[in-house]
């Protein structure tokens, strides 16, 4: 494999795009970047650019190292680093406590799971010292409080509290994630305000999990599952 092509510069109207190969070892990548930036130094001069890294997901440390190389080797005036739209994530970047990571060989053992068939209506409350699966919707005003995980095969519009005994490893998954309030462990959050009422009616599977005191809600699509 030709290592030379693991770093390719591309100038666009938005700034400098640096295409990085996702497979190659990071140290080799750094060497190639250093070589290429040195070669392109005269071309760049002291232009003011924004930089976008594409093709490979970098963690903060890696990104910093690459930027350091660029600033060492060139006189580029970096105005800002453009965040690449996060679609696929490398598995290495998923936090270890990402709930679906605990599923080894596709299997995960859960202490107890209660299934509930039908819609949870306003004013109804399900409390269970284990995981809960609802085959139906959770209407606004309805609540589910579980020590374990909560999975809703329908619209979540009510209040859910997963990991209610303080456990931060629990997750909440729903086909339509629009909770009034979502709590995992000791953290409370709510869904972002709906811009379009009709958009809110579409089913779009998502999973909510806790990482570093923040609740992340991500779509469950083939990209997420491929990259676990």
């Amino acid at each position: 494999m030709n290592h030379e092509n693991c770093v390719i510069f591309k100038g666009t109207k938005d700034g400098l795009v640096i295409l990085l190969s996702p497979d190659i070892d990071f140290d080799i990548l750094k060497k190639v970047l250093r070589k290429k930036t040195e070669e392109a130094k005269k071309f760049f001069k002291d232009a003011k650019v924004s930089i976008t890294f594409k093709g490979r997901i970098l963690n903060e440390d890696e990104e910093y190292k690459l930027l350091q190389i660029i600033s060492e080797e060139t006189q580029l005036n970096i105005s800002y680093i453009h965040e690449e739209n996060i679609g696929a994530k490398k598995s290495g970047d998923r936090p270890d406590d990402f709930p679906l990571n605990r599923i080894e060989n596709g299997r995960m053992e859960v202490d107890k799971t209660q299934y509930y068939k039908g819609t949870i209506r306003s004013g109804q409350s399900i409390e269970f010292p284990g995981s809960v699966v609802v085959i139906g919707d959770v209407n606004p005003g309805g609540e589910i409080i579980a020590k374990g995980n909560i999975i809703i095969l329908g619209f979540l519009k009510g209040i859910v509290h997963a990991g209610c005994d303080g456990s931060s490893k629990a997750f909440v998954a729903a086909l339509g994630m629009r909770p009034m309030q979502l709590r995992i462990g000791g953290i409370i959050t709510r869904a972002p305000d709906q811009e379009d009422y009709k958009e809110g009616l579409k089913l779009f599977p998502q999973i909510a999990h806790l990482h570093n005191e923040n609740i992340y809600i991500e779509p469950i699509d083939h990209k997420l599952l491929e990259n676990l």
Partner: protein
Amino acid sequence: MLCQQGGNCMSQVIVITSGKGGVGKTTTTANIGTGLALKGNKVVLLDADIGLRNLDVVMGLENRIVYDLIDVVEGHCRVKQALIKDKRYPTLYLLPAAQTRDKNAISPEQMQKLCDQLREEFDYIIIDCPAGIEQGFKNAIAGADRAIVVTTPEVSAVRDADRIIGLLEASELRNPTLILNRIRMNMVKRGDMMAMDDVVDILAVDLLGVIPDDENIVVSTNRGEPAVTDSSSLAGQAFRNAVERIMGNNVPLMDLDINEGFMGKIKKLFGIGN
């Protein structure tokens, strides 16, 4: 009492409830009850809203009340003495509530006993349930076989209807049917009001009828003549259709659009703004 051969009698006790106040329970009770009576059924309307009785006013019978529900339950009179026969519709009767007492004056058990007594005489017993979820509600549903939930296409009303349906299901009154009241198709088309499908999706119950917002209702309430008797009233027609469905006849939902459009055209013709 509809008796089949072999003495199998099929009276139905239906409670009309909503949770939220002001969505049209009393209006629905009056119209559905009168509609059923017009079809030849023997019907009694029972006002369970003790302390805030309205059914007698809406039916135009308030000046004929001598005895009420609490008098019957406390033994001051017989049921027949308290029942008011409507002179306009020969098979329709009203059992009014008490105005000077409150909802603690009767218990669910007493209510159930009364309903069982009424079953012997009537084909349909329609109970007007008070708003709320406390004692009044518990009393009203005690003797019922099935429930009709009334709601308007507004988030607050739908939220309360959802709550009420949950409570009904918990009391073994499963599969309530829905009356969607005061719908305004022009607002639905603009996206300013919830559509029929939106409400039914959230509540997950079968639709009994969709009643358009109609000025005739205000008029008919004030006159004490239910709109179901008025052939020019759209709401009245919608109630007549709902009555057919209760009796088991599958009537398609009224196309409320056509009428709006027609009236809209007429109005435009005469230069009358909407």
